[in-house]
């Protein structure tokens, strides 16, 4: 059994990677990752969108995926959501291989896509009802109403989403991802164009998910929000993961410099 008497800045990363730290400073055997990506490649014709990403994320943790446009963040999220199949590599979500147990993996995932994510001529309530029906949820109406109120969308629950602003659409996408309290919550650009109240509500969703033991992945360009919301940050560049560090190391001016250094 490993012991590590002094854990400071890198404690979370260390614990996430090698084991859990008890109150007595003893590191117990690690839990299996909820998201386990090894050697992921995704090719679209001649273009390699993801070039060998390795990523592990754990229950009760929130991991931010940071990187420039085209770094492979959204494609990785789509693979984890079961939307895009991997070209090579293994991807396990909640213990299910997304290639062979796609439906089980989808059952475990709540996904907020990066673009839109809403059927234009369906209402928020109809989106929620469809999701609940396909996931065999019985008591979904109360949590659905609660989420709509928290994200201030209760008044428009029965209007089609084609008339929504960008921020309203983002907020509803987060609600749809969170409704069924998934084991793995995937939020791709959840803060994009969202007002402060929506950002706060999204923070709450992430906190609640972590508290109940879910694994959260957040892809975003907004480094400061990622640092606030997440425990770990993975930086992607050119389709590969170049660093995984505790989110505290990406905070403030120093974090910004470190981040820029990783992007170049």
């Amino acid at each position: 059994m490993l012991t590590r008497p002094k854990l400071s800045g890198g404690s979370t990363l260390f614990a996430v990677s090698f084991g859990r730290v008890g109150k007595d400073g003893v590191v117990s055997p690690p839990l299996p990752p909820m998201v386990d990506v090894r050697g992921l490649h995704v090719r679209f014709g001649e273009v390699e969108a993801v070039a060998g990403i390795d990523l592990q994320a754990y229950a009760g943790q929130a991991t931010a995926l940071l990187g420039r446009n085209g770094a492979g963040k959204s494609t990785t999220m789509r693979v984890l959501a079961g939307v895009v199949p991997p070209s090579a590599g293994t991807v396990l979500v909640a213990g299910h291989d997304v290639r062979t147990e796609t439906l089980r993996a989808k059952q475990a995932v709540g996904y907020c896509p990066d673009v839109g994510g809403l059927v234009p001529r369906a209402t928020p309530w109809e989106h929620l009802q469809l999701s609940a029906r396909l996931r065999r949820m019985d008591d979904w109406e109360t949590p659905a109403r609660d989420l709509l109120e928290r994200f201030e969308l209760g008044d428009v629950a029965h209007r089609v989403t084609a008339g929504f602003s960008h921020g309203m659409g983002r907020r509803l996408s987060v609600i749809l991802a969170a409704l069924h309290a998934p084991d793995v919550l995937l939020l791709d650009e959840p803060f994009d164009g969202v007002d402060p109240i929506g950002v706060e509500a999204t923070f709450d969703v992430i906190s609640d998910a972590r508290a109940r033991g879910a694994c959260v992945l957040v892809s975003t360009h907004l480094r400061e929000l990622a640092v606030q919301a997440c425990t770990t940050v993975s930086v992607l560049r050119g389709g590969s993961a170049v660093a995984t560090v505790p989110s505290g190391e990406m905070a403030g001016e120093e974090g910004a410099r470190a981040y820029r250094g990783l992007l170049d």
Partner: protein
Amino acid sequence: MPIAVSSTRALADVGHLVRFRAGSLRRRRLSAGAMVGFVVVSLAVAVLPGLFPDAGADDGWALDLLLLLPTMLTGFLALAIVSATASGGGRELIARDPGSIHPISPTTDHLGALLLVPLNIAWLLQAWTLVGVTSYALGTDAALPQAQLIVVLWLLATTAVAQVVAWTIEVVRRVRHGIAWVRGIGVALLGVAVALHLTANLVPVFDRLPTRWFVVGMVSDSAPRTALTAVVLLVAFLAATALGAVPAHLAAHRPPRDEQDVETGHYAARGRPRSELTALVRTDRASVWRAVPMRRGVAVLALAPGLVALAGGLPWEQLTILPGLVGSGGALLWGVNAWCLDGRGGLWRESLPVPPGVVFDARAYVLAEFLLVASLVTVALGAVRAGVPSVAELTALLCTVVVVTVQVVAAGLRWSEQRPFAVDLRSARATPAPPVVMVGYSARLALSTTLTGLTFSVLARVPEWQVSVLVAVPFLAWSTARLLRTRRLWVDPVARARVVTAVAV
């Protein structure tokens, strides 16, 4: 800005947009081939019917068609108006959302819409019919070239006039209570037509149509008379082209009320769906029936051919042509790019835990239902004056409806899988694929469904009803096999991801 400068700039902008669209064509050789094909077919239609043995005769079909020409010219104008009105002022050179970042004036938009009109198969077939009928009616007469010139000018002038009418109606639709006004006017016009028919005045009205003046100009021996006809049409074309910019500007400054009604309306929650399929069908139905272009399009498709059949008193064996026409038109509203219904919601929908085969079944079911509703309304209207059908006639018609529906669903979903496009079907002017692609789809659909309709039209005359059923079986088997092949492709995650990510851009 002075009108002349504005018009010049608008014309130049149309050129820029055309070049932009042409530059985005993926199959340039195919497009160039299609252009050559269009010219060859047009020339063939203009010349070949005139070489038939009885062409240009002073009696028989040639004379009948010559006498019908004024009515056909009017019919073309009516079709052009209905088509342009249904599409909210015509098609767009560049879709509204991507176009909104460019300074595209309503005049440019109007000219672009006018330019795209011939890329509508209904317009094209009617135009070729007019040209071909003129050729057959006149034969190798020396007047044929001048007559064809007049016909071409008629096509140009009436298309431009139709555009003016369509923009004007669009302006009215966008004022307060405008939609009610337009519907009221439509019902009133229908009432007038019915009244004329019931009082046996419809044919006399057709005989007194002012379009006779143009037909006289076509066949006149007097060069000045023909020249006058040509000049009148040319002036009408130029004037209508210029005038169309006025209502186009007025419409552009008013928000589309029907879209607003859809987007601000309240849709009451419904009970829990009984099954996964029901849940998906319900979502797909909402996507179809809440879309302005689909609602307008299907209303025109269901009513217009049915009313023409009603007015013309088509017999049962000829009604078999209608389901193919309506089915093809219905598929062209969204069925040829069926996955675009989800728009950007496609990514989220794809993340839901449901077998992809069920998703495919729901989409195929909703498309078939959409086509069947339109076809059955058309057939019901056409049946009003067709009398009591024989069992063989009724069987042939039912077989046509079923075969054509499966045929069109199979083709539409196959193309949807092969060539997905990211399209926002929010506006009445939106089409599910780029204009050039739409021409290809519509030509292929028109050919296959017309042949099917003609086959069953012949079978309707066979006394034994079983023959129609026997012939329908291989048709259905072929289309079903193609549909199932597309379903297998859809179930493949790589193929499906390509479609979903393409439409969700």
